[in-house]
């Protein structure tokens, strides 16, 4: 079985669905002949042709709006927004239509759309290319937000997202697009949505995270283990809606919670997780909840971006803080 990177796994999942479901259409800016600026649609145009793999005009709001129309009339569009910083023009269509068409027509029409978009910083990209604003869409009912943390998970979650009858914003952590290769069987087996994945079991502290920074959290867990601290690492995977049960069960076991995300802190998804645990698991807590997040400032240009993205050391310190005293 060949080992693949996350970006290759994402192309594999789209190829599988294009081959097995004639209603699937991949579209976006430069996704066709070029195979996408990150090559996440590489080879699809050659294999499936210009009707199934479409280079669109350059307009993100248009991409989202045409997806609404196509999906309502029986297609399953899988659209790429080239960078998350260019998602903002599409928010009108995502919020006003895509996420609520099923609801407002009482199920008559629906929007099985996937919007794929790169997520987060750490790749020395230009301005507006390092956003992680998942909480903006997580706030919207009717649409799921999904973020994988490994090639295999990306393959499985993307298949599930394309097959889901409702819209999904699928966030692709650019920093780990090519960081590691993993054996990923191209068997069309989806990974379930709406559940967290426990990446590492532990007893002393629960660390909930998602996306690229999951790799840093796993490193932090190694360092903590070397210091005699056993961390349980949970990959949130479906950022919205949150699988509360897995998180609460873990906190009931460890009594301590650290939430790690790259996005800014204020009204971040970490705040929702903290609130869930405060509401339903307060008496399990042995220490205050710690949040390790990006800062509440503009994501800096790349010379400073690694001081913005939480470091392994910061994560280790936060975990140790829950054990202090």
């Amino acid at each position: 079985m060949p080992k693949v990177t996350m970006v290759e796994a994402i192309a594999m999942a789209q190829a599988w669905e294009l081959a097995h479901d004639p209603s699937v259409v991949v579209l976006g800016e430069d996704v066709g002949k070029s195979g996408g600026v990150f090559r996440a649609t590489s080879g699809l145009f050659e294999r499936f042709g210009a009707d199934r793999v479409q280079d669109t005009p350059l307009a993100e709001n248009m991409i989202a709006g045409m997806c609404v129309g196509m999906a309502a009339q029986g297609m399953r569009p899988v659209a790429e927004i080239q960078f998350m910083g260019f998602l903002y023009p599409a928010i009108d269509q995502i919020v006003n239509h895509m996420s609520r068409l099923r609801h407002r027509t009482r199920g008559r029409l629906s929007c099985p759309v996937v919007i794929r978009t790169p997520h987060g910083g750490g790749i020395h990209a230009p301005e507006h290319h390092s956003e992680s604003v998942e909480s903006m869409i997580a706030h919207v009912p009717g649409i799921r937000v999904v973020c994988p943390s490994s090639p295999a998970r990306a393959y499985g979650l993307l298949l599930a997202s394309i097959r889901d009858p409702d819209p999904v914003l699928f966030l692709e952590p650019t920093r780990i697009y090519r960081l590691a290769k993993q054996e990923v069987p191209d068997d069309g087996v989806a990974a379930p949505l709406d559940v967290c994945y426990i990446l590492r079991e532990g007893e002393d502290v629960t660390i909930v995270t998602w996306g690229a920074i999951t790799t840093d959290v796993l490193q932090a867990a190694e360092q903590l283990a070397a210091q005699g601290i056993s961390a349980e690492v949970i990959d949130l995977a479906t950022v919205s809606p949150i699988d509360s049960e897995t998180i609460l069960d873990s906190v009931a076991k460890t009594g301590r919670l650290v939430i790690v995300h790259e996005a800014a802190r204020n009204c971040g998804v970490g705040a929702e997780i903290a609130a869930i645990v405060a509401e339903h698991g307060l008496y399990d807590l042995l220490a205050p909840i710690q949040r390790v997040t990006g800062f509440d400032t503009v994501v800096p240009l790349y010379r400073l971006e690694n001081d913005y993205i939480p470091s392994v050391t910061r994560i280790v310190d936060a975990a140790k803080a829950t054990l202090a005293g």
Partner: protein
Amino acid sequence: MRTVAEFRIEYLRQLSPQGRPLDELPAFAADNEELLKMFAAMLRARTFDAKAVNLQRTGKLGTYAPCLGQEAAHVGVGAAMRPEDCLAIVYREIGTLFWRGVSMTEVLLYWGGDERGNDFAVPRHDFPWCVPIATQTLHAAGAAMAFKIRKEPRCAVAYIGDGGTSEGTFYEAMNLAGARQLPIVFVVVNNKWAISVPIEEQTAAETLAQKGIAAGIPGVQVDGNDVIAVRDCMSRALEKARNGGGPTVVEAISYRLSDHTTADDASRYRNEAEVAEAWKVEPMIRLRKLLESRGVLDEAREQAMKAEFTREVDAAVQEYLSTPRQATDAMFDHLYANPPPYVEAQKELARRYAGTGRPSH
């Protein structure tokens, strides 16, 4: 210097405002029954419209956007479309909706605050009412893309108003439609007023039809108060689109004889003389005169039609008013095909406190 591109916008009209044919009429207009059907559809829409405004005034309906004065544009478009075509409306086009089979009760339910009004029994595939301006044009373009990919001989029709043509979304939809030669017709109903802003302040463009030119789409202006011209023009645009000839922008010139909505007071921003002039060319007059000149319509027959529609509207109003509101749970229904667990928990909470808030209508 040389000219590298030129454009021309034609203005189409078949009947004078007094109902005199200006040229040889299109073939369908030879059929008196067909014209009577269109006249009836306009009268039916107008009868319903007046009742809906009254219902709002008496507290039995929410804010409503009347169609008064634009019945010919709406009926002409409806009559040109096939049932399998796909319509993306704005919020005023009941003449088209009724023609395509949407019921009066459904329209009343929607404006009466009930999502079930968007669950059209017929046609199932048309898009629901669309309040965010211009957004529906992209839905129609997406539908047209689906038809093109599946090689189905179907067209999409997107309505938009004069104000809506200032939105970037409209340009994006036209650009996509032009670039991919999609089977779509954009119908701009230019009723001269975008709430309080007149068309002269909306744009420096001489016509709204020409807004398609930059997207490579031909545009045509039609007298939107001339139902024969609208239907003829739309039929040709749809036939062209259906045969792979690409999109068209049709600008139907009409006038909003009513307030923007029942929440608006147009007397604050436009003068009575202008409205009085517009009443002289309103769309019922010319078709009535043509049909009277052909001896197939008279005062008695029109009154009989009107009485029939009044009874139909009253029955729909009764059905609407006697439809119980949805259960509290309904606000969570159809949010997801596979609802996450939080939905059940919040449903339970909503049920427990249902009726404890401010009294609802």
